[in-house]
């Protein structure tokens, strides 16, 4: 396992370096001037020159890349062209909100989707399965923002019992200080994730329920509850682990629609704003962080596979 992890970690570093190079090249292929985007339409040539010198944009591309790699090696992600703040500070400011909101909603969605999927598989084609199917299909087809607006219209505008905004504080402690404001954004993201996870879980559990080893377990007199927990759950959860692992980068990358609707400034909006304003350092920094999160999520899913299924042992042959 150790050698496997070391090998995957080395692969991860290569992937992240590749992502960095590719992103750097692609960003610089975008037509238009970063200085003009940052300084606005009335930027004089003098101001543009000052800006380009200040940010090294007057150097050849290879020199800019060398500078960027140099500062990365010193742990410096650069300074945003538009906010004039260190990119690391911007990410540190935005990340806690996303980790809390998306992390909690993902955990909740998984916690509900797993029993729901197994239940539907066991009750396959019965009325309860069909009702839950209808609910999950409805949620699956609804865009995030629509779910959010429905919840806001009901609980904020009509009933006035929950605020329509996420907590406005920064930092985990500040966010948790206003728990009522967390309810609607977390509910929206949970409902959006739930539909997908439960569909995977149901399909996987149906496959497992058809396996011979379950018939054997039941023939041996194993109670149905233990059959479901020890055999169905453990075997059917594997595909969901993959999906959840691939969801991990979303927790870091943010959810731009939910951020927009619930007015919290997360990584999604940071990336969107950077993309529309040619803010290269923020784009590169965000991509690097999300790229690393993707690699980590994928690795975590692989490791979890090994732990859940004894037949899978990484690092042998």
């Amino acid at each position: 396992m150790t050698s496997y992890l070391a090998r995957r970690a080395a692969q991860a570093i290569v992937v992240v370096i590749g992502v960095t190079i590719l992103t750097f090249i692609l960003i610089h292929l975008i037509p238009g001037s970063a200085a003009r985007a940052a300084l606005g339409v009335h930027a004089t040539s003098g101001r543009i020159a000052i800006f380009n010198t200040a940010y090294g944009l007057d150097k050849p591309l290879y020199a800019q890349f060398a500078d960027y790699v140099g500062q990365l090696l010193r742990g410096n992600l650069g300074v945003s062209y538009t906010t004039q703040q260190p990119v690391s500070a911007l990410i540190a400011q935005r990340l806690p909100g996303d980790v809390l909101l998306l992390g909690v909603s993902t955990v909740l969605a998984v916690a509900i989707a797993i029993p729901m999927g197994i239940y539907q598989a066991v009750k396959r084609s019965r009325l309860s399965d069909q009702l839950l199917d209808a609910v999950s299909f409805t949620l699956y087809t609804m865009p995030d923002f629509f779910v959010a607006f429905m919840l806001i219209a009901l609980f904020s505008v009509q009933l006035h019992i929950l605020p329509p905004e996420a907590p406005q504080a920064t930092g985990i402690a500040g966010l948790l200080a206003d728990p009522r404001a967390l309810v609607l954004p977390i509910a929206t993201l949970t409902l959006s994730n739930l539909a997908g996870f439960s569909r995977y879980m149901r399909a996987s559990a149906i496959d497992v329920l058809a396996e011979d080893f379950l018939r054997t377990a039941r023939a041996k007199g194993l109670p149905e509850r233990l059959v479901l927990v020890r055999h169905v759950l453990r075997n059917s959860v594997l595909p969901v682990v993959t999906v959840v692992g691939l969801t991990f980068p979303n927790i870091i990358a943010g959810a731009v629609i939910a951020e927009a609707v619930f007015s919290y400034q997360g990584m999604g909006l940071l990336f969107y704003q950077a993309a529309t304003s040619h803010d290269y350092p923020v784009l590169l920094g965000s991509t690097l962080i999300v790229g690393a999160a993707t690699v980590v999520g994928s690795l975590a899913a692989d490791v979890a596979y090994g732990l859940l299924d004894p037949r899978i042992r990484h690092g042998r042959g």
Partner: protein
Amino acid sequence: MRTPRRLAAAAAAAAVIGLAACSGSGGSSAIGNGAASSATGQKVQGGTATLAWPDGSAPNLIFPLAPATNTNGYNANLTQLMWPYLVYDGDGAQSAVNPQESLFSSLTYGNGDTTITIKLKPWKWSDGTPITSRDFTFVYNLLKANVPNWVVYTPGLFPDDVKSVATPSASTIVVTLTRSYNADFYTDNVLSQIPLLPQQAWDKESAGGKVGNYDETAAGAKAVWAFLQKEGSDLSTFTTNPLWKVVDGPFTLASFSSDGDYTYAPNKNYSGTVPALSRVVNQVFTTDTAEMDALRSGTSLTVGTLPQNDVGQVATLKSEGYDVVNQPIPGAAGTLLNFYNAKTGPLVSQLYIRQAMEELIDRPQIVSKIFQGYADPGDGPVPVQGFGQWVSPLEKQGGPYPYDPAKAVSLLKSHGWQVTPSGTSVCQAPGTGPAECGAGITKGEPLSFQLLYSSGTASVDEAQAAIQSSEEQGGIKITLKSEPFATLASVIGQCTASSHPASTCGWQLVDFGYDPYQLDPTGNTLFNTGGANNLGGYSSPEEDALINETEYGSSAQTFYTYEDYTAEQLPWLWGPLPSQIDVYKSGLGGFAPLNPFRGSINPEDWYYTK
């Protein structure tokens, strides 16, 4: 408030939900004109007002003199309530200087308008020391040594045009200029950008250093500037750094969050009228929709803005205890023309073509149908609403080119065009004669343009579509393309006769929204040859002479002459300028009359009533 295009669908859905949610609600849907606040009752001390700000409005510099690389206009919103300008622009709803809140007691122009004698009020800094003429020289020395690295620097103006500054007393400043100016222009547009800064607290080169007179040498002024820029950009110390605790405005900063939310508390030692409110909270919303949801759900939000497309929500907002007022925006609005685009430059260089294009824009209909009546008609360079004495009789009467499709078609035909309504007109008679298409226009050339505009606002989309549609009546084909503002800015540069590189001069027509005016709606930088904001390269010696006359001459009539000439010559195609629609708690007194030159942000005048 601009919103990303991809969120437009979300906004539309929100509007639908909003309409469903408010069905059956009664109440008036009238929007006030902002002449007076609706609050009645006795003024009380204390209370918190919470203002909504749009996404991207987070300030990032607290030092009031921003460097050239920092164009974040929201920094001024943060700082002007703590370090007000020498001249306070806007007096209630009037485009006039506010004498109560300005820092001077008198401004006298002499020697043929080449010297200005400024008498300061006997006001004090929050640390108890008096505001003196030395504070002015401190600012002047910093700017003189660090220009052009000052974001509002205009070459030739302050401090370039200052021959000398004398301080005959602690309360008197005599500024000698290198040339004479129109006094209104200089007071309204130049001195209104100069704050006074506390020399006795800020004239330092390092945090641990002592206060001195470092600004009196160029090297020292550069060091002080660098130090203050560095300290001023550290968001984490905005409320703790001793530098920023010394203010002369009505407020001090009580809290600041790096995501842009911040809170003011009254400056208890303010020499003017100390604000009644005990807290002013500034809160950033990521979208218009999020802000609207907050308003409709009856949260603590006190002041917000209503997107034009949500005017239908007024009755609901009123039922939640808000009032709604219309605030005209002081700015020039319209479509910029690129006179140096290789393909379309020769077309727009012809006045008759610009004239036909203008006569095909149904401005009154756009105002009434798309902006619900809450927009300036855009009949020329100066908005009719909000500028009172600056608006010429011609503009008041609808401008030189009212909507007249028949006249436009006739004009094109008389210049050799085969006009194809709903198609594309083509030049039939090339040449430079009076009945021919004009210089540089070839036979068969189509009247076809691409119009770029800033994306993210549904009402603006509709207005551009209306222009596209009405231009078709004259066979003028407009292809619309919307982009985020920053994307447009990144590819659009200034095009002049001497420089029009393809990379930044490939655009044909562009509409950025509007260019803001200060108190004096000068055409300098917008329409003069080589003006920094004259992106399309319009050039006319007569226009230049008239603009110069408005800045340097002394006749009030000159401005109307300039204004009418500009309206007729169409350096831009004039278009409507939508108003800002403000929403405020009906118990908030002092909110109106609105001051359009400060974006309605006058919390020093606000109070609650009982």
